[in-house]
């Protein structure tokens, strides 16, 4: 009965101290002893787990001295009993006076863990069944103790692991990059930065409760990721992943481009216990690099366009200059009659006008680019102005064989910049001549109380619809510049001038059917 009660009590106990406490208390009470103690062996020495009824000085002496013959016997698994301590020199407890004593080994699995000792205040004999009971109690006590010690070792290991985990997570938490740890038991930890990228509040969970990485991750080219490609999965298999770029689709917000490093975490035995993935959000970096590349391309284009323009401008200026120069040579060296001389002078003047117009355009281009174009407005009859431009260009039309049909309806008055409007009309007519394929060109001037309009219509090359806005850009033309002369700024300049007048210049065109330009100027 005594054994059953004590064994039942011991079986519920988890710590070695509690085992000792219960065993000593219950045994002392059950046997009517005055003192009892439980020791565990620690190498050559022993440690007192629990002692009741012994003076402190006695316990200290035991601990200090360490070696006793009866303790050595207990180590060997043998119990010691005495009816009278004072009559048996092996016992050291004279502070308690005379009385019986016993010492039983705590044996479990063929190994002695420690000893339990009882001291009585009276002399007595130990009956055989009492000795057996004490030995059995010692064995049970040893089992409980062994279990408790194992538990403790395990608890300590767990606590150490937990501390290591907290330390790792604490470090990860402070990293300036996103990090995630996945353990082989399925537990997941993500640090603050990683949670931010994923757009979730989930920090610690297990894999079943975490978004499937094959749905949240994809390759930068948009291809889906299969499970085996997920960096942390590869790391759990023992691979080291370095600098892998992936796109994360967060639970909210835009996709993020991340650069991932991942690797396994091994224990002392080399077994993989976890994998760590560290990923840096490089979305902005990538975007910036792309923008820089784009900017660089644009700059290169701009430089190329400028170089092309300079080369074209040079060509355009040299052509009339060459003609002018040749006419002057002719005037100097050839014997000419009055009529021929007049013809040559007129030709020279025409080249001078061509040059002047080109120089004016070039100057206006740089003025407009600098934002310094200033209109010199004066009262003008648009019909008269158009008539003058036509008179100047009619010879070019005649020589080219392009019919020009002019339709004017009386004076159309307004306050405009004469030279600039002349330039617009000249450019529109020159274009019609250049791209009109010698088919008739129609020029019409109309006006109502609000707007004055100039319409120039040809039936030539026309402009593809995708080019119809581009032709108003600077240095752009819808055809190869090698084949057609001009600065490539005429329409851009014409529109800038129209806009400076708060008017507009638009085009309607059909490819291979011709173009119709409409200049509208507020009156």
């Amino acid at each position, binding site marked *: 009965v005594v054994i059953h009660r004590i064994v039942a009590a011991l079986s519920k106990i988890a710590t070695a101290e509690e085992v000792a406490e219960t065993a000593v208390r219950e045994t002392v009470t059950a046997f009517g002893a005055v003192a009892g103690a439980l020791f565990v062996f620690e190498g050559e020495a022993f440690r007192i787990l629990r002692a009741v009824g012994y003076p402190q000085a006695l316990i200290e002496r035991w601990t200090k001295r360490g070696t006793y013959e009866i303790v050595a016997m207990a180590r060997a698994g043998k119990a010691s009993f005495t009816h009278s301590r004072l009559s048996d020199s092996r016992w050291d407890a004279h502070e308690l006076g005379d009385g019986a004593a016993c010492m039983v080994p705590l044996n479990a699995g063929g190994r002695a863990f420690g000893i339990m000792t009882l001291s009585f205040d009276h002399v007595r004999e130990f009956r055989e069944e009492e000795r057996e009971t004490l030995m059995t109690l010692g064995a049970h006590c040893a089992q409980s103790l062994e279990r408790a010690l194992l538990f403790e070792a395990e608890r300590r290991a767990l606590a150490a692991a937990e501390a290591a985990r907290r330390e790792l997570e604490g470090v990860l938490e402070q990293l300036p990059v996103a990090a995630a740890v996945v353990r082989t038991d399925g537990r997941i930890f993500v640090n603050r930065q990683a949670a931010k990228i994923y757009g979730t509040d989930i920090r610690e969970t297990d894999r079943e409760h975490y978004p499937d990485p094959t749905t949240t991750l994809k390759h930068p080219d948009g291809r889906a990721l299969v499970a085996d490609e997920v960096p942390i999965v590869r790391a759990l298999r023992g691979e080291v992943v370095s600098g892998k770029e992936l796109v994360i689709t967060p639970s909210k917000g835009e996709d993020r481009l991340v650069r991932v490093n991942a690797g396994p975490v091994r224990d002392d035995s080399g077994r993989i216990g976890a994998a760590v993935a560290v990923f840096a959000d490089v979305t902005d970096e990538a975007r910036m690099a792309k923008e820089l590349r784009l900017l660089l391309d644009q700059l290169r284009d701009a430089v190329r366009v400028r170089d092309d323009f300079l080369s074209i401008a040079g*060509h355009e200026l040299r052509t009339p200059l060459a003609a002018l120069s*040749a006419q002057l040579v*002719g005037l100097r060296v050839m014997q000419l009659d009055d009529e021929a001389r007049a013809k040559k002078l007129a030709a020279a003047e025409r080249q001078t006008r061509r040059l002047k117009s080109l120089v004016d355009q070039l100057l206006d281009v740089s003025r407009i680019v600098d934002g310094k174009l200033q209109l010199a407005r004066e009262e003008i009859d648009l019909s008269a102005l158009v008539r003058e431009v036509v008179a100047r260009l009619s010879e070019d039309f005649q020589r080219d064989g392009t019919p020009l049909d002019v339709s004017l309806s009386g004076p159309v008055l307004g306050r405009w910049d004469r030279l600039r409007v002349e330039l617009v009309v000249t450019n529109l007519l020159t274009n019609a001549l250049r791209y009109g394929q010698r088919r008739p060109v129609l020029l019409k001037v109309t006006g109502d109380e609000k707007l004055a309009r100039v319409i120039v219509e040809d039936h030539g090359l026309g402009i593809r619809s995708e080019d119809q806005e581009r032709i108003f850009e600077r240095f752009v033309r819808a055809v190869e510049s090698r084949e057609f002369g001009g600065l490539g700024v005429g329409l851009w300049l014409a529109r800038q001038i129209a806009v400076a007048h708060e008017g507009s210049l638009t085009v309607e065109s059909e490819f291979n059917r011709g173009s119709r330009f409409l200049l509208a100027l507020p009156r």
Partner: protein
Amino acid sequence: MKQLLFIDDDVDVRDAFADLLIFSGWEVVAAADGLEALAWLVEHAAPAVILLDLKMPRCDGYEFRSRQLEDPRLRAIPTVVFTADAQPEPSLLRGLGDVVLVRKSDEFSDLLQQIERVTR
């Protein structure tokens, strides 16, 4: 009188230089582009020299030149390229074959000298 085929789309340049070339003793035939020139060449005997602008609509100097070189009858006609470009693109120039290059900004006497040199 030796015949010169002058191919240039700019009527002012054509007129001005044709006058001077005629004055210098040449018979000048003018064409506004490569196509006109090729059409004329089909129907007439080969001229002594061709004066060729590069930048022209429809059929430019480069294309005319490659067609000229393909035609055994025209291949040997000495050709002076007459351009307003300061620095024609080297890659394009290579396609022109064996020609003499004169810039429109050069003196007329230089042009005349080159024409006479290639026809000597």
